[in-house]
């Protein structure tokens, strides 16, 4: 929604003639909705910047958010919503910073407006709505960016390969094992097998909530790949409900060793490698 030239002029005049009143009332209205989670000083400077951007746009031509010369106004709005999104404010709390300008303008028009008060208010309202929607969109974009970043970090984080013993590495799988994660797990495991020269790998699925055919297929492929490199794989963390589900589904793990817990798997490997563990007799016992 673009304003006409006269409307733009009147808006700019209102906003630049009553600078203090606008900033004061605007800050108060927004601050009330943010409940003190943003300092008055910071809020005031943000809103002042936004007010200035609107005035500058009006001076360059008519106020139209889509116009080329409105780039600064768009940048200020985008920056505002980015900041809010990163600080964890809700979408409503973000948009209200813009929408609160309506109340301020209404007060100003009531006391200073001429004959065209109502028409002006409707036009200004429409402009502010457009600005609010723009803020909302920037907010969503920022949040989507954050979520995508986090998903990527999670993928990296959630697939560690740990060394349990000399020659024994373990992959504790947690959560859903989709194709992307299965690929990361396999790459990490095979690389760690080469780096550490380990002949044994334990894949622990205690943290995988459901083992369906796709998950099973991913695990089986990983085991086969590890075997091709000369390493033996043990699958651990098979809980009773998972065992029953696997049987009902008809998945066969063939000659792959499986254990109920990671401890059992480690004990199994240690026995295979000839390591003996004995409990030291306690003194005085």
């Amino acid at each position, binding site marked *: 929604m673009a304003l006409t030239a006269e409307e733009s002029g009147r808006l700019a005049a209102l906003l630049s003639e009553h600078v203090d009143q606008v900033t004061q009332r605007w800050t108060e209205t927004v601050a009330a909705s943010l409940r003190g989670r943003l300092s008055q000083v910071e809020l005031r400077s943000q809103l002042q910047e936004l007010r200035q951007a609107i005035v500058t746009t009006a001076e360059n031509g008519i106020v139209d958010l889509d116009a080329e010369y409105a780039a600064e106004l768009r940048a200020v709005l985008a920056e505002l919503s980015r900041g809010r999104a990163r600080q964890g404010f809700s979408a409503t709390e973000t948009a209200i910073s813009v929408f609160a300008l309506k109340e301020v303008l209404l007060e100003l028009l009531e006391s200073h407006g001429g004959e065209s008060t109502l028409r002006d208010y409707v036009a200004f309202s429409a402009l502010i709505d457009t600005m609010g929607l723009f803020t909302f969109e920037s907010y969503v974009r920022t949040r989507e960016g954050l979520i995508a970043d986090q998903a990527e970090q999670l993928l990296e984080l959630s697939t560690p390969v740990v060394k349990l013993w000399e020659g024994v590495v373990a992959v504790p799988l947690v959560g859903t094992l989709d194709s992307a994660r299965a690929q990361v797990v396999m790459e990490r495991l095979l690389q760690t097998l080469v780096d550490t020269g380990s002949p044994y790998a334990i894949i622990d699925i205690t943290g995988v*909530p*459901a083992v*369906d*055919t*796709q998950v*099973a297929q991913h695990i089986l492929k990983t085991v086969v790949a590890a075997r091709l490199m000369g390493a033996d794989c043990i699958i651990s963390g098979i809980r009773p409900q*998972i065992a029953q589900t696997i049987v009902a*589904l*008809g998945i066969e793990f063939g000659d792959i060793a499986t254990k109920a817990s990671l401890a059992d798997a480690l004990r199994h490997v240690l026995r295979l490698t000839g390591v003996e563990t004995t409990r030291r007799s306690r003194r005085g016992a």
Partner: protein
Amino acid sequence: MTAGIDLDQPHAQAIRSDEDVVRVRQLVRTVAVAAKLSLVDQTKLVTAASELARNTLVYGGGGGVEVATVDNGRRRGVRIIFADSGPGIADLNLALTDGYTTGGGLGLGLSGARRLVDEFDIDTGVGKGTRITVIKWAR
């Protein structure tokens, strides 16, 4: 997440991507917990739902699922309906054979899912799409 889930209402979920398969799993688990299925039955039902949801996505080209609790007078259970408007299954007996796959999987999804639930009903035909209804009763 959905602690206060309304059991009387059926819950619908579209299946359009891999993430939706995860959502179906979470929805089924939530309803199964609320319907007081045992841990083993929950896991079996969630796994069956995972298989069938993936089939809906991969072979049916996407579709939808409806999860609801049902009551036969004596027992409570969870009913899940998977529907797609894909090409349908030409030879149902072959598709239900262990190890038969056209998509490079293990070929156990459809037949395995049938073994994981108490009631399994499939309505399909070439060009008709596929509609699978499964029920798991609480013991």
